[in-house]
């Protein structure tokens, strides 16, 4: 498994690391601009999602979505082989990568074989996960993001703060400033003007690009088809204009049949942005054929494992791999809404990030993330494929203190002798009634000695004191007086 994605995340001015979650959360909470940007965006997204599912039997649809993803995972190795065989039969070259580094190398080699110096990218979270842009940059290949949000974030030398809306942390004025400073666009508050400026800047780049890189939303084993969901058209540009198209995807994105796609697509677009449908649904099954006049002459598919086959081993953790990357869990998360995406310091922020990142980066670096939740359950309730995210958060908390099955990298990182001893002592007391009674009675008698400060607990609360009389004693007294009454 790759650990290349460890501590430090972003390339540019701001660096975020999951190790610094608490400090970053503190900073974000003190930044009214960030909080306002996220609050406004998340409120809008929650309302839109609720409205768009209005006339649907949402529960039945979610059930079907979960069911399709479970079926795909149950047959995963067979489906991957079928996908490979059908893609190859269609003329798509298929590559396999055990980790992000291997995947980066494969893409670099494809670029080098074509003497490519410029790559234009459609949105791909897995390429963020493997830090493809930085890798290609080092190899002397320029990688340009073309999704408007990704473009802005890249200009600002940042990483995305949301998996669907990468620039959600920036407001109009900030974006105007970025476009002015980095591209010389006139300062304006008019969104159409800014969009038009980006359009003309990027059109030149589409024409000049040697290679287009994209992600994949669903890979259909039955037909060897790669499906891409988008609104802007940059995904279609990136996969149609350059002479070579490289699609990169996690191995879990495969589905069995073409008919599995409509329910997942319906769930994805509605859950992500509250749209009935996205502007484009782009299904690619082969490179340009003889006689066709446009489209890439070469299409590659890179299947990336990067820790996924490890998650796959465990019946409970497996559910993590059902995810279709809609972002609804973060839109509805009270923690994400307040601290924003960068605070997590990982490629995938919010609840899904907190259950996925520990597998990708190890619990040593990400031990705070499973605790970045009040376990309110909103994420699990809105998940279109019914991933029990709260249960998985709890499972990872157990793993981090060494009480799980130990099959997450870095399991036990938070285990301390003191805590283990405390729980052992508690266990002994709780299973030996006379010790319990003696202990609680003594605690009650000495309640005046309870310290008024109890570490972090008393930062926002007053210290709890043991009751003068234990519950046991109260019940006994009550029963005794009742018995007396009955006798009379």
């Amino acid at each position, binding site marked *: 498994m790759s650990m290349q994605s460890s501590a430090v995340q972003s390339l540019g001015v701001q660096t975020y690391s999951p190790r610094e979650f608490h400090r970053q959360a503190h900073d974000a909470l003190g930044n009214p601009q960030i909080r306002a*940007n996220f609050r406004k*965006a998340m409120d*809008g997204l929650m309302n839109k999602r609720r409205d768009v599912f209005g006339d649907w039997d949402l529960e039945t*649809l979610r059930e*079907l979505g979960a*069911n399709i993803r479970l*079926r795909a*995972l*149950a047959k*995963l*190795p067979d489906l*991957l*082989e079928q996908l490979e065989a059908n893609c190859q039969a269609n003329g798509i070259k298929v590559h*396999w990568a*055990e980790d992000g580094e291997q995947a980066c190398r494969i893409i670099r080699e494809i670029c080098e074989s074509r003497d490519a110096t410029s790559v234009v990218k459609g949105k791909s979270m897995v390429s963020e996960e493997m830090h493809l842009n930085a890798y290609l940059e080092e190899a002397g290949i320029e990688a340009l993001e*073309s999704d*408007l*949000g990704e473009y*802005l974030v890249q200009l600002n030398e940042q990483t995305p703060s949301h998996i669907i*809306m*990468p*620039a959600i942390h920036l407001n*109009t004025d900030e*974006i105007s400033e970025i476009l002015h400073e980095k591209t010389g666009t006139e300062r304006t508050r008019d*969104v*159409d003007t*800014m*969009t038009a400026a980006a359009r003309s800047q990027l059109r030149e780049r589409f024409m000049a690009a040697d290679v287009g890189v994209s992600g994949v939303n669903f890979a259909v084993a*039955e037909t060897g*088809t790669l499906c891409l969901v988008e*609104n*802007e*058209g940059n995904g*279609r*540009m990136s996969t149609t204009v350059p002479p070579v198209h490289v699609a990169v995807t996690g191995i879990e994105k495969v589905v069995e*049949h*073409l*008919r*599995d796609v*409509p*329910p997942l697509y*319906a769930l994805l677009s509605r859950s992500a942005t509250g749209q*009935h*449908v*996205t*502007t*484009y*649904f*782009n299904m690619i*099954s082969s*490179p*340009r054929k003889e006689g*066709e*006049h446009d*489209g890439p002459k070469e299409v590659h598919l890179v299947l990336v*494992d990067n820790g996924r*086959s*490890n998650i796959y*081993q465990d019946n409970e953790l497996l559910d993590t791999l059902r995810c279709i990357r809609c972002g609804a869990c973060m839109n509805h998360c009270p923690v994400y809404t307040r601290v924003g995406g960068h605070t997590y310091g990982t490629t995938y922020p919010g609840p899904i990030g907190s259950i996925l990142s520990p597998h990708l980066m190890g619990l040593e670096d990400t031990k705070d993330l499973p605790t970045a939740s009040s376990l309110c359950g909103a994420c699990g309730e809105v998940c279109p494929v019914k991933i029990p995210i709260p249960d998985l958060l709890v499972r990872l908390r157990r793993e981090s203190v060494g009480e799980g099955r130990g*099959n997450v990298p870095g399991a036990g990182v938070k285990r301390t002798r003191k805590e283990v001893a405390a729980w052992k002592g508690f266990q002994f007391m709780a299973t030996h009634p006379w010790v319990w009674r003696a202990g609680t009675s003594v605690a009650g008698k000495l309640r005046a000695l309870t310290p008024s400060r109890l570490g972090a607990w008393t930062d926002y609360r007053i210290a709890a004191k043991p009751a003068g009389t234990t519950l046991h004693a109260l019940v006994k007294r009550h029963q005794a007086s009742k018995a007396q009454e009955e006798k009379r």
Partner: protein
Amino acid sequence: MSARDTILNRLRERADGPLTAPESDFAVVTHRGWNAEERLARFVQLITSVHGEVIHTAPEEWTDALAKVLAEKGVKRLALGREHPVAAEARRALADAEVELVDVDRDIEEWQREQFESVDAGLSSTRGAIAETGSLWLWPTSDEPRLISLVPPIHIAVLDADAIEDTFYDVLECHGWASGMPTNALLISGPSKTADIEQTLAYGVHGPRELVVLVRHDGPEPGDER
């Protein structure tokens, strides 16, 4: 061992043992039971709600409607195919018009910059549409390549109302997509758009700013009381 075999072996020798695959019931994404009028009304309502423009026309008069759209929008150069009846009829009807017709049946390498910079609109046929989501479906061909519905600032699509079906699932199943996918299959639901700048909608970010759908049918327009 290759990365491929390592990954597949790891998946096959799963620690918690093999998984059982559940059966799926697709009833929730099909059997809407709409009639032709309801389908058309729903399609129109949804595609206009995302900024698509719909023009109703009788089948025999559609080229007049096209000429009117071109004039209204000031289209000077129109990219279109040659063989598809939509393209062939448009070419005949526009032969004497002021609009310059741009051939698209040539390799993009020969005319990329021209297509990106000097074509005002692209005309294409469609294979059908989806009522539930207000989506057109296209299978680009060598006669009508992929980029004519993407690169020009205006995309004009011609749709026959009787080719509107209820759901995406219905389209896949009825037309047997799984038994032979084209190089590229597309659903298009409105003009290109983004909300990446503070959730404010803007159209035409990379693809067309305008999508005009000429819907050919003899019935009344949806909402029309006649």
